[in-house]
């Protein structure tokens, strides 16, 4: 049915600009049937923009797209579907209160009335063929992230897509789920479909794809066969210069108890216990890693310490002041009280623009988010914030049109630099970060690792909630593993293995 070199899509000289920003410049790309193509590049290198032009969301400023060697105009997502191109977006586009089957036929307009049984039958057929597992009658709001993603894939297959584009499909999945996804992708390839995966994770590129196309700063670099590529060679093409793949880890210099957490329990609004009697200590000059499948209580743990989360009776978080030696209870406080207690607690939350920063404000005004109320004056003092914003701009090489440009307009990596920069500038004694490098490219990730190591060296107690086990094992001195709101183990980062931590992450009680 398919022959290995049959071209599915060819892009020639495709260019797309947004205002003065060039997202894609003169891109040539070739996608074949019966193969998995990885589209690799750093954040902001234009991967998603390029694929959005295939799925009809954007329209190119210049260049030509060919599908099956015929020139086409893709003006809307409907045109893309007509050409049998389907894209699974990073942020799912599903209606929560509808069932899986209803979401699948939504907007399809098949001309006749909605035949529940027929839809369910066809959905099951697709599931059986490729090895998916979804229930057509299940409502979306009761689905896990991985089920939602499966549904998105089934949705485009139901519409007869032969060319599937997956945007960062593994970002939200666990290791096991990723394996499952990859086996489905391989089944689709065997069926002659063409699959494009947008990613910046090298190990996944090597594991699943046949060819890799690399973009850098909106420009097309090359396409190589995966079998001839190594992590190092791909990295070089992706970032343009050699980067060291090792993360530095210094020995702990001055280890003193800084935070003692005891019996921390959190019950959420639905009555579910998300943290169950957590007890641990964090020390100065140490990076304490927190590993676990996402949603195992990491968010609640950090927010409890930061005074943002209601905790159950009996919980205790005691901070030992390095200067006075005083012990201070943080439970029952709020961020303002914590500051008033003289505790320098910095927190880089997971939701950068929804919690850590104000998207509509520029760097200057974001700098004063936590200390704007200092002093007796009724009016704001912008001078210091402006100086700090300028310092962070140059020291962390933030790319922005200006310090007053709303931070929402910056790319993901630059947003994180602004946030981490501010939190470190506050001279913390405890620094908590949640998924500090999520979605960041290699260069920016290393900038963050280095900043964390500097903080450790200067005696800060760092708590690093992460998802990449390789990074956790290289960066952290100790790793605490959470599973279902409980601590399943605390291991030494220098001696522990990936398998050991992985096993703790899924350990049942």
């Amino acid at each position, binding site marked *: 049915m398919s022959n290995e070199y049959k071209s599915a899509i060819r892009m020639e000289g495709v260019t797309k600009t947004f205002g003065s920003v060039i997202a894609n410049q003169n891109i040539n790309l070739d996608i074949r049937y019966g193969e998995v193509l990885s589209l690799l590049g750093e954040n902001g290198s234009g991967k998603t923009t390029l694929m959005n032009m295939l799925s009809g969301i954007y*329209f190119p400023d210049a260049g030509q797209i060919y599908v099956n060697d015929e020139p086409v105009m893709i*003006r809307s997502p409907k045109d893309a579907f007509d050409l*049998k191109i389907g894209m699974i977006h990073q942020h799912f586009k599903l209606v929560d209160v509808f069932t899986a089957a209803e979401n699948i036929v939504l907007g399809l307009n098949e001309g006749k009335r909605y035949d529940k049984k027929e839809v369910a039958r066809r959905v099951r057929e697709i599931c059986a063929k490729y090895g998916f597992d979804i229930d057509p009658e299940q409502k979306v709001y009761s689905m896990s992230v991985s089920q939602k993603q499966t549904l998105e894939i089934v949705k485009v297959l139901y519409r007869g897509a032969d060319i599937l584009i997956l945007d960062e499909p593994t970002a939200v999945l666990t290791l096991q789920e990723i394996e499952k996804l990859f086996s489905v992708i391989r089944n689709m390839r065997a069926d002659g479909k063409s699959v494009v995966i947008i990613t910046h994770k090298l190990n996944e590129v090597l594991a699943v794809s046949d060819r890799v196309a690399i973009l850098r700063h909106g420009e097309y670099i090359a396409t190589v066969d995966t079998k001839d590529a190594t992590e190092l060679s791909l990295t070089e093409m992706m970032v343009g210069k050699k980067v060291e793949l090792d993360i530095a880890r210094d020995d702990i210099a001055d280890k003193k108890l800084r935070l003692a957490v005891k019996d921390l329990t959190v019950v959420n609004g639905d009555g579910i216990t998300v943290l169950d009697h957590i007890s641990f200590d964090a020390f100065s000059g140490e990076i304490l890693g927190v590993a676990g499948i996402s949603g195992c209580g990491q968010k609640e743990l950090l927010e409890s310490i930061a005074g943002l989360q209601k905790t159950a009776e009996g919980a205790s978080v005691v901070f030992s002041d390095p200067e006075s030696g005083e012990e201070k209870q943080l439970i029952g406080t709020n961020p303002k009280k914590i500051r008033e207690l003289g505790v320098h607690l910095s927190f880089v939350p997971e939701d950068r623009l929804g919690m850590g920063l*104000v998207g509509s404000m520029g760097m200057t005004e974001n700098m004063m*988010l936590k200390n704007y109320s200092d002093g007796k*004056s*009724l009016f704001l003092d912008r001078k210091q914030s402006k100086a700090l914003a300028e310092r962070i701009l140059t020291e962390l090489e933030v790319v922005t049109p200006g310090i007053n440009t709303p931070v929402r307009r910056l790319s993901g990596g630059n947003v994180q630099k602004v946030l981490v920069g501010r939190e470190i500038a506050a001279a913390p004694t405890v620094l908590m970060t949640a998924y500090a490098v999520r979605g960041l490219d290699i260069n920016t990730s290393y900038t963050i690792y280095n900043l964390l190591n500097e903080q450790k060296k200067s005696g800060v107690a760092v708590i690093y909630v992460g998802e990449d086990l390789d990074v956790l094992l290289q960066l952290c001195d100790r790793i605490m593993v959470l599973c279902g709101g409980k601590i399943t183990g605390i291991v030494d980062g220098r001696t522990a293995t990936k398998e050991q931590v992985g096993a703790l992450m899924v350990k049942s009680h």
Partner: protein
Amino acid sequence: MSHLPQTHKKEPLVRIVKRDAVSAKKAWGIRIIGLLCALVVCAVLIFALTKLNPISVYTSMFRGAFGTARRSWQTIRDAMMLLCVSLGLAPAFMMRFWNIGAEGQILVGGVATAGCMIYLGDKMPTPLLFVVMFAASILAGALWGFVPAFFKAKFGTNETLFTLMMNYIAIQLTSYFVALWEKPFGSNTVGIINDRTNAGWFRPLFGQQYGWNVVIVLLITIGMYFYLRHSKQGYEIQVVGESENTARYAGINVRRVIMRTMIISGSICGLSGFIAVAGAGHTISVSTAGGRGFTAIIVAWLSKFNPFVMIIFSFLLAFLDKGAAEIASKFNLNDHVSSILKGIILFFVLGSEFFITYKLIFRKSEKEIAAKEEK
């Protein structure tokens, strides 16, 4: 692979593309072009519907608003009223608190003022009377703003419905007081309050009847500018408006900010009730607010909460009102024609905001493409 449908689709005729940040100069240029386009469309419509000369219609519109000193001052008076309400709404909307209850807040402020004038008018020295009226209107407005804010902060109720319902309470309350203070008996109006003594009326300032209106509102304008842009409380309002999570993270007491801001918002709206009664109408009725509580929402958003820009839009709307009324009476048109004109002009003004954020790219014709290729 199955055969694909043949696609011979052309490039889309028009595409909407987001612009880079536009300079203030260019933005105002776009707005002025929008206004000119509106005038042209209105001219065509006027001629088509009424066969009148559009130029003479425009001229009389202008005369209606600024033709005589008296008319000019009335336009200024109305603009100041509208501006005052818009200033009251600005902090609430900046906090993304959908206060559509300004209408009610104006009314209760007006009722409080009228009550003071009726019961205390001849019992107090003038300066003290003004202080009492001023305070009463602010308190009444603040209460009307505080109630929905309290329920929003404590129980997460929807402020849009709540503030709207508060309007109806205010309207009924006003009807009650109108009946109570009816004068002369059976007229179902309050009539001119203190028409003999003029107690509680704004005195002329610099020889102008509405001098005080202008001074008070402009002072609030300047104050609001500094409050929103440079005060710590203004900063808190912006953060809460953007994201409550960020506000909590920053240590801001979100509930307190919501309640405090709505007390301020309601107070200023109540104060505009005071100006409407003591400084303009000298009476109270259910139409004292006259829809300004809603029109002011347009002013506040169009100005992007910048108090000084609000002056311009308040004048534009007051001008349109006065001008429309004038052409309706002068050319014997019915009210609806002037409402249509007002609508068209507003449509274009609002539309120009779209063109400030986005631009259109048209498909190049085949000739153009051919010409380009030859080069």
